[in-house]
């Protein structure tokens, strides 16, 4: 149940692209054709499925406050969490390079279809974002971390697939000249994001309080609302 909830949440409610804007750069740059979009999307799922659990292990057994306790009681006082950025990104960059080598060796056809996208992925913010959200949302087990990696990857895949399909069709429409290309893509993504917001009610069942983990945006918005409410109270 826990797994199922996390799975749907990561795909629809906290969708990487529509709720947190991660991986926007490659999302905008590689979405002109459906076939290339599928290639990049598959590569993202693949790399996230590897790096998120790996970074979870790193975080739990090395970086967290007191995580080094397994070495002996005298190590329990160390808190290396300030190193997490550098460790996560190093893991991701190495894994991407490793995956590239392995795929090239064992499946040349897959390599040819993923080919140019693999190096791009090291700097795709969705990948690092996945690991950072995994850390900040305190995911409990390595199984859940794997689940989170795969499902966020699928969410990203769906988003880029959808926008690529729309962009292929929109080529035949009469878009105002200055909006052509990038501008209209932004606006369509905005409209799609509004659509995806309606998934927000899926797990909460209408009860706002039961939302345990929120995206950074929602937090920002909530804070703004809180400030407004506080002001209201002070006025009353």
């Amino acid at each position, binding site marked *: 149940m826990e797994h199922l909830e996390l799975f749907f949440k990561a795909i629809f409610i906290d969708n990487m692209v*529509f709720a947190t804007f991660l991986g926007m750069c490659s999302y905008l740059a590689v979405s002109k054709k459906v076939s290339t979009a599928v290639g990049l999307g598959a590569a993202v799922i693949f790399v996230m499925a590897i790096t998120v659990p790996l970074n979870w292990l790193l975080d739990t057994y090395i970086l967290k406050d007191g995580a080094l306790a397994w070495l002996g009681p005298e190590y329990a006082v160390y808190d290396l969490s300030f190193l997490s950025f550098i460790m996560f990104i190093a893991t991701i960059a190495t894994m991407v390079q490793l995956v590239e080598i392995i795929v090239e060796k064992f499946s040349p056809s897959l390599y040819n279809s993923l080919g140019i996208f693999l190096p791009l992925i090291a700097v795709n*913010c969705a990948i690092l974002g996945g690991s950072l959200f995994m850390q900040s949302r305190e995911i409990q087990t390595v199984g859940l971390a794997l689940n989170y990696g795969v499902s966020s990857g699928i969410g990203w895949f769906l988003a880029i697939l959808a926008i690529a399909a729309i962009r292929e069709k929109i080529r035949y429409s009469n*878009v105002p000249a*200055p909006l052509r290309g990038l501008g209209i893509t932004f606006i369509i993504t905005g409209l799609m994001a509004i659509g995806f917001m309606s998934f927000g009610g899926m797990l909460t069942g209408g009860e706002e309080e039961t939302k345990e983990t929120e995206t950074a*945006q929602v937090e920002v918005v909530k804070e703004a609302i809180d400030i407004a409410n506080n002001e209201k109270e002070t006025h009353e």
Partner: protein
Amino acid sequence: MGLLSKKDLKLITDPLADNNPITIQVLGICSALAITAELKASIVMSVAVLFVMGLGNLTISLMRNIIPSKIRIIAQLIVVATLVIIVDLVLKAFAYELSKTLSVFVGLIITNCIIMGRFEAFALANGPLRSFIDGIGNALGYALILIIVGFFRELLGSGSLLGFKVLGDSIEKTGVYAYGYENNGFMLLAPMALITVGIIIWVQRSRNEALIEEN
């Protein structure tokens, strides 16, 4: 500007307008959209990126002859990550509330493609001073868009700027609220950031026809 030659000056002015990293080069979108619900967060983010970009470009440019090209991406990522850790620790020490608001997006400066993009495109091929200037220029171009988006989102969404209520008070109905104006709470939500940037692109490209993309 006796210090800078005309060519160097162009490195700063170009990214501010016709070669803007966000609206033209399509780099560094993620953070530009995610944290712009308030003007203050936009400004802090801009300063952070300015710091990381300027110093990062400088460092990479100094190291450009000793980095083997095969592992350059890892080397670049380590340089950025180190600078970002400094930014993160400084924010946590001096502006804790704000660093909570920015949450993972400070960390995501590492994978902000604007930084890697400039490393690849400029710092690896140019001298330290020019790279530094290029970094500053591009970070300023990035900051410009961030601040415009943050300005409109905060002004229209909560009727304030940097927390000061410039449009009057929405509860006591002073200022423009006396005439029936209401805040557009929708501006605070994530999708409006995308649409705001879309409109900025629209305005920019209608003013400069050369930037219009082919269909």
